[in-house]
C-alpha cells in the first residue's frame, strides 16, 4: 500500500504542484522568481560552493534526462565495459562535485549571521531535499553498481508508465532501499520546486551565455577615486 502511495500517487502530486503552483506563482508574484543571489558581490566566497554544485547538478540532471529520453542509446554506449566505466566515473565525479559544493554552501550560510537572517524555512527544506537526493544518489552509485545500465530497464520504463497514466510500480518497488529513497527524494524536490528558490531554474538567464560582451566604461577619474 505504501508503495502505491509513494510510487503511484506521489509522482502525480509532485507534477501537479510543480506545474500548477509554478504558473500561479509566476502570475501572482513574478518578482519572487529568484534565489536572492549575492553572487555579484561574493563571487570569490561563493566559488567553492556555488560553481562545483551547479556544474555537478546540471550535468547530473541532464544525464538522468538523456538516459530517460534515449535508453537504447545508453545501452549501446554501455555495450563496452570501458565505456560503461567512463560513464559511471563521470557521473560519480559530478556527484562528488555536487556534494562538495552543497556542503560548502550550507557551511557558508551557517557561518554568516547576515545569511542566517535571510534564511527561510523553505531554504532549509530545499537544503534537506537536495542533501537527501545527493546522498541517496551517491549511495546508489557506490553500493548498487552500474546504475546507468539497470536504470534503462527499471526506472525508465517506470517513468514511461507514469506518463501514460498506468504506473508500473513493481519495477521500482522491488529495487533496493537506496534506489527507492533516491526516487522519492527526486519527487520531493519536484514538489518543493514551485514554493522555493528552486524556481530560479526556469528563469535562469541562459541567453547570458551567448550575449555580446558588455564594456564597462568608468565615467570618473579612476586614479583619484581608487586612491581615496
Amino acid at each position, binding site marked *: 500500500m505504501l508503495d502505491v502511495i509513494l510510487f503511484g500517487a506521489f509522482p502525480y502530486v509532485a507534477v501537479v504542484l510543480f506545474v500548477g503552483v509554478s504558473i500561479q506563482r509566476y502570475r501572482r508574484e513574478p518578482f519572487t522568481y529568484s534565489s536572492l543571489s549575492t553572487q555579484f558581490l561574493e563571487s570569490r566566497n561563493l566559488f567553492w560552493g556555488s560553481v562545483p554544485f551547479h556544474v555537478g547538478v546540471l550535468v547530473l540532471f541532464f544525464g538522468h534526462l538523456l538516459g530517460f529520453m534515449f535508453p537504447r542509446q545508453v545501452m549501446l554506449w554501455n555495450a563496452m565495459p570501458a565505456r560503461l566505466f567512463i560513464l559511471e566515473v563521470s557521473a560519480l*565525479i559530478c556527484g562528488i*562535485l555536487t556534494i562538495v559544493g552543497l556542503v560548502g554552501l550550507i557551511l557558508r550560510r551557517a557561518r554568516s549571521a547576515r545569511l542566517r537572517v535571510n534564511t527561510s524555512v523553505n531554504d532549509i527544506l530545499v537544503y534537506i531535499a537536495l542533501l537527501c537526493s545527493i546522498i541517496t544518489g551517491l549511495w546508489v552509485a557506490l553500493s548498487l553498481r552500474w546504475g546507468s545500465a539497470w536504470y*534503462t530497464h*527499471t526506472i525508465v520504463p517506470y517513468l514511461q508508465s507514469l506518463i501514460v497514466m498506468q504506473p508500473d510500480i513493481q519495477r521500482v518497488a522491488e529495487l533496493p532501499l537506496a534506489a527507492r529513497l533516491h526516487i522519492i527524494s527526486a519527487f520531493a524536490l519536484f514538489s518543493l520546486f514551485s514554493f522555493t528558490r528552486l524556481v530560479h531554474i526556469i528563469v535562469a538567464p541562459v541567453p547570458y551565455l551567448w550575449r555580446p560582451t558588455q564594456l564597462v566604461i568608468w565615467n570618473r577619474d579612476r586614479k583619484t577615486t581608487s586612491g581615496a
Partner: protein
Amino acid sequence: MELRVLIAGLLIALPVVSLAAEDGTPHPSTDVFVTKCSSCHSVGEGDRVGPDLKGVTERRKPDWLATMIKAPSRLLDSDPEVRALLAKYNNVRMPDLGLDDEQVAGLIDLVAHCSEHACQLTPELRPVTEAVELDAAHGRALFLGTAMFTNGGPSCISCHTVSGTGAMIGGGTLAKDITNVFARLGDDGLDAALRNPSFPLMNKVFGDHPLSAEEAFALRAYLYDANRGKHQGAGVYQLSVPMASLIGAIAVLILLNTAWSRRLRGVRRELVRHGGRPS
C-alpha cells in the same frame, strides 16, 4: 465466498482434469507450470530456488495451497510455517504471479497428478555438457554486454557479478553474485531462471525481453565454467570507480578554479570596491 467457489470449482475440476491426463498426454496445466513455476519448483526432482512440491497436496489443505499459489504475499509475513520455509530457502520471496482461480485449481491438480506419475515439467533442454569453448565465449560476451540479446534485454553485468570476467571492471551489485549460480540451480533450474525468471524484478525486466533458448544455452555454458572456477585469476586487477571518481573530481575542481575563478573578476572587483561611494 471467493474461496468457496474456488474449492467447489476445484472439486468439480479434479476428476475431469485428472482423467484427461491419464492417457499419456501432458497435463493441461503443464504450460502454466513450465512458464510460471518451474524456475523455482520441481515435482519430484528435488529443491530448486523453492521446495520440491511432490506430495504437497497431501500435506497441506486445498485452501491454504490456493492462497499460497495465488497470493503468497498474504502468507509470507503472517504464517509462521511459511516464514520458516522462507528462511530455509534463502529468503527468496515468492512473487504474486497474477494467476486466476482456474489456473490455480489446475496447478494444484497438476501437482497432485505429477506427485503420482512422472511428468515432463521443464522445457526440453540442451544439456550444458554439449557446450564447446565458443558457446561459453558467446555467453561471456552476452554477460558483459559486448553481444546484445536479440530481444533487447539488458546485459547481465548491469546487475550481476561473476568473479573473473576478464574485463577491467567488476560486475553489477544490484543483484546477487552469480559466480556459483550453476551449483545452486543446476542446469534445468538455471535455464528456467534465465528464460522465465521468477525473481520479481528480473521477471519484470525480462518479461518484455525474453532470452532465446540459444542465448540461455550460451550463458549456462559460461556460468558452468565460472562455477568450476575456470575464470579465477582472470581480471583480478580491477579499476575502482570511487577512486577514479575522487581523482577526477579533484582534477575538475582544479580545472574550474583555473578556468573560472578569474572570470570577470577585474571589472567586478572595481565595482564592488566602489559600490556605494560617490564617484
